[in-house]
C-alpha cells in the first residue's frame, strides 16, 4: 500500500506526523522514567561512595569513581565484615526483622478479618440494631479517613497502661486497623465478581456456608487476596508515624531507624545511603516481581 502512495503528499505528511507523535511519546516516557529512577540510582550508588566522591559530584560507578564498601560497612554488611561479629549489623537486622514480622503479621491479620467481613457483606443481609449492610460497609470504609494522629495519643496512653508500648503486638494491631478498610474495599470487589451459583451448588452438595467459603470461594478469590496482602504489606512496611510515637528500643522498625540517623550523624552520606537502600530494596524487589498483583489491588474498586 505504501509503495503505491509513497509520493502522495498527504501520505508523507501523515507519516511525519506519526513519527513526531512516536518521538513525543517515547521522550515523555523516558523523561518520567528518569525522574522515577534517578533518586533510586543516586541512593544506591552513593552507598558505594567515599567522601571525596560525594563532594566532587561523581555519578557513574567505575567510570568516574571506584565503588567502595564503606557505606555498607557502617551497617556491617560487606564482603570483609560478613563473617565477623558486628553489633551494627545485629542492630540493623533486628530492625529489619521487626519490620518484617510486623508488616507480615499485620497484613495477614487484615486479610483474614477483611476477607471474612467482605464475603459476609457481599452475600448476606445483616441487621445490627439500626445498621444494615450498606451502613456496615460504610462504617468499615469510613475508617480510611480517620487520620492516624487522632488515634496516636490515646493509643500512647492506652498502650502505656496495657504495657504494650514498644511491643510488636501493639504495632501489629494498629497497622491491621490501618489497612483493614483497604482490604475490605478490594475483597468486596473480588467477591462480588464471583457468581453465587457456585456456592449454591456447593450447598446443594451438602457443604455448610463456611465449607463452601473455604473450599469453593477461597481458591477463586486467592489472587485478589494476594493483591490485598501485598498492598497492605507495602503500607505497613513504610509506616512511620505510629512506629515513631509508640516504639522506643525493642520494637523499632526500619523507617524509624532511618529517620533517627539523619539528625545524629550530620551528613554521613554513605552510611545513610546504605541504610536507605537496604530499607527500600525489599519493596523494590516486590514491585519488580509482583507488579501484577499490586496493580490488580489498586485497580479493584476503581473500575466497576
Amino acid at each position, binding site marked *: 500500500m505504501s509503495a503505491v502512495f509513497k509520493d502522495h503528499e498527504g501520505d508523507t505528511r501523515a507519516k511525519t506526523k506519526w513519527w513526531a507523535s512516536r518521538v513525543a*511519546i*517515547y521522550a515523555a*516516557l523516558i523523561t518520567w522514567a528518569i525522574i522515577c529512577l534517578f*533518586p533510586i540510582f543516586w541512593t544506591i550508588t552513593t552507598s558505594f561512595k567515599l567522601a571525596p566522591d560525594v*563532594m566532587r559530584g561523581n*555519578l557513574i560507578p567505575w567510570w568516574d569513581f571506584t565503588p567502595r564498601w564503606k557505606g555498607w560497612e557502617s551497617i556491617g554488611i560487606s564482603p570483609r565484615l560478613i563473617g565477623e561479629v558486628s553489633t551494627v549489623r545485629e542492630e540493623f537486622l533486628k530492625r529489619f526483622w521487626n519490620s518484617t514480622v510486623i508488616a507480615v503479621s499485620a497484613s495477614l491479620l487484615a486479610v483474614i*478479618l477483611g476477607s*471474612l*467481613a467482605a464475603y*459476609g*457483606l457481599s*452475600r*448476606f*443481609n445483616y441487621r445490627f440494631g439500626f445498621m*444494615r*449492610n450498606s451502613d*456496615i460497609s460504610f*462504617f*468499615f470504609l469510613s475508617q*480510611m*479517613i*480517620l487520620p*492516624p*494522629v*487522632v488515634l*496516636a*495519643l*490515646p*493509643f500512647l*496512653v492506652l498502650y502505656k*497502661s*496495657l*504495657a504494650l508500648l514498644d511491643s510488636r503486638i501493639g504495632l501489629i494491631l494498629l497497622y*491491621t*486497623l490501618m489497612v483493614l478498610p483497604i482490604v475490605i474495599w478490594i475483597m468486596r470487589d473480588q467477591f462480588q465478581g464471583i457468581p*453465587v451459583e457456585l456456592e449454591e451448588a456447593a*450447598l446443594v452438595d451438602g457443604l455448610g*456456608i*463456611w465449607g463452601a467459603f473455604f473450599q469453593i470461594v477461597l481458591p477463586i478469590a486467592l489472587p485478589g487476596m494476594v493483591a490485598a496482602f501485598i498492598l497492605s504489606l*507495602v503500607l505497613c512496611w*513504610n509506616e*512511620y508515624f505510629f512506629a515513631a510515637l509508640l516504639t522506643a528500643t525493642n520494637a523499632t522498625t*526500619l*523507617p*524509624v531507624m*532511618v*529517620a533517627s540517623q539523619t539528625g545524629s550523624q550530620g*551528613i554521613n*552520606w554513605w552510611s*545513610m545511603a546504605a541504610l*536507605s537502600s537496604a530499607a*527500600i530494596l525489599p*519493596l523494590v524487589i516486590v*514491585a519488580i516481581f509482583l*507488579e501484577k498483583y*499490586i*496493580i490488580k489491588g*489498586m*485497580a479493584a474498586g*476503581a473500575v466497576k
Partner: protein
Amino acid sequence: MSIQGDLLHTVTADNISDRRRRLGKAMVWGSAALCAGLAIWQMAYETGRVSVGFETWRPVLYAYVLWAFALCAAQVIVNGEKGKRTLFVLPAALFVISLVVFPLLFALYISFTDWNLASPNGPQPNGWDNMVQMWNDAFYWNALKNMVYYVLAVSVEYVIAFGLALLLNAQIRARKFFRVVFLLPLMLSPVAVSWMIGKSMLEVRFGPVSRLIREMGFEPSFFGNPETARFMIMAMDAWTFIPFMMIMLLAGLQALPSEVIEASKVDGASGWQSFKEVIFPLMLPVSVTAVVIRIIFKLKLADVIINVTSGGPGGATDSVTSFIFREYRDRSNVGYGTLLAMVYLVLIVIFVTLLLKLVSRWMERPA
C-alpha cells in the same frame, strides 16, 4: 434492592435447645462480668482503695479478648446457622470497634484535660481552656491553611497522572518495563524518600540537583523561603503518590469500551477531540474515585515534613499531623495535642462528606 434477602439463600432447620441457648448466654455474660470485674478492681487498685492488684492493665485486656471470643462463639451456639453468617462480619466489626471507638471516646476525654506527660499530676480536666488556646494558636491555623494548599496540589498530580496513564495506554513497546518503573516510587517509604531526595539530592552544597541549578547559573535554595519549601514538599509527596492515581486511571482506561473510541475515530474526531468528548467524560467516575482517595491520603501527610523540614521555615510547610506530632514530641502536651487532633477529625469528616456529596453526581457513568 438489598432489602429483599440474602444473596446466598440457606435453608436451615435449627433445633436449638434451651440448655444450649443458656450456655451461650452464660458464656457471654460470664466473660463480660469477668472483664468488668477485673477492670473495676484494677481501677480501685490504681486509685489506692485496694492494696492488691496487677502491675498493668494487661489482665483486663486478656479478659476483654476472652469476652470477644466468647461473643463470637456464642453467636453459633445461640443462633445456629444464622450465627454462622454473623460470624463472617463480627470479628472484623469487634476489632474495629474496640480499636477505634474506645480510643476515640478516650481521646474525647483527654482533649478536655491539661494532660502533659511531663507533669506529675496526671490529667486534670480544664474545661474549654484547650479550645481557647487553639483559637489563639496561629501555628495551628497556619497548618490548616497549608493543608488547603496541599490538597489543591492534588489537581496538578491528577493531570500528570492522567498524562502518564494515557502514555502507558498508548501503543508502546516495553510497556511492562515502563509500568514497573513508574510504579517504583510508590513502593518507597516516605522516610527513605525524605532522605534520598529531601536531604541528599536537594542538599545545597553537594546534591546533584543543586549542582545542576548552579550549572545553570542560579543559586540553589530549596528550604530557605516558605514558597519553595512548600513546593518541594508537595513535589516529593507527588513523586511518591502519582503512581497510585496513575494505576487507577490506567485501569479505567483499559476498561473503556474500545468500540466507542473507534467510533469517534471513524466519525473523524482528532486525538484531542476524542479525548475531550469521549475519553474524559467516560473516565469521570474513575477520576473522581482516584482523586477522592488521593485527597484522603493527602490529609494524613506528615512523614516527609517531619523528616525534611520539621515544619520550617517558620511553619510554612507544617501539616496538621506534623504540627501535632511536634506538639507531643517536643512539649509532651497530650491534652492539647489531642484536642487539636479531634478538631482536625471533625473538620475532615465535614470536608469529606461535603466532597462526596459534591462529586456524587459525577460518579455515575454518563449514558
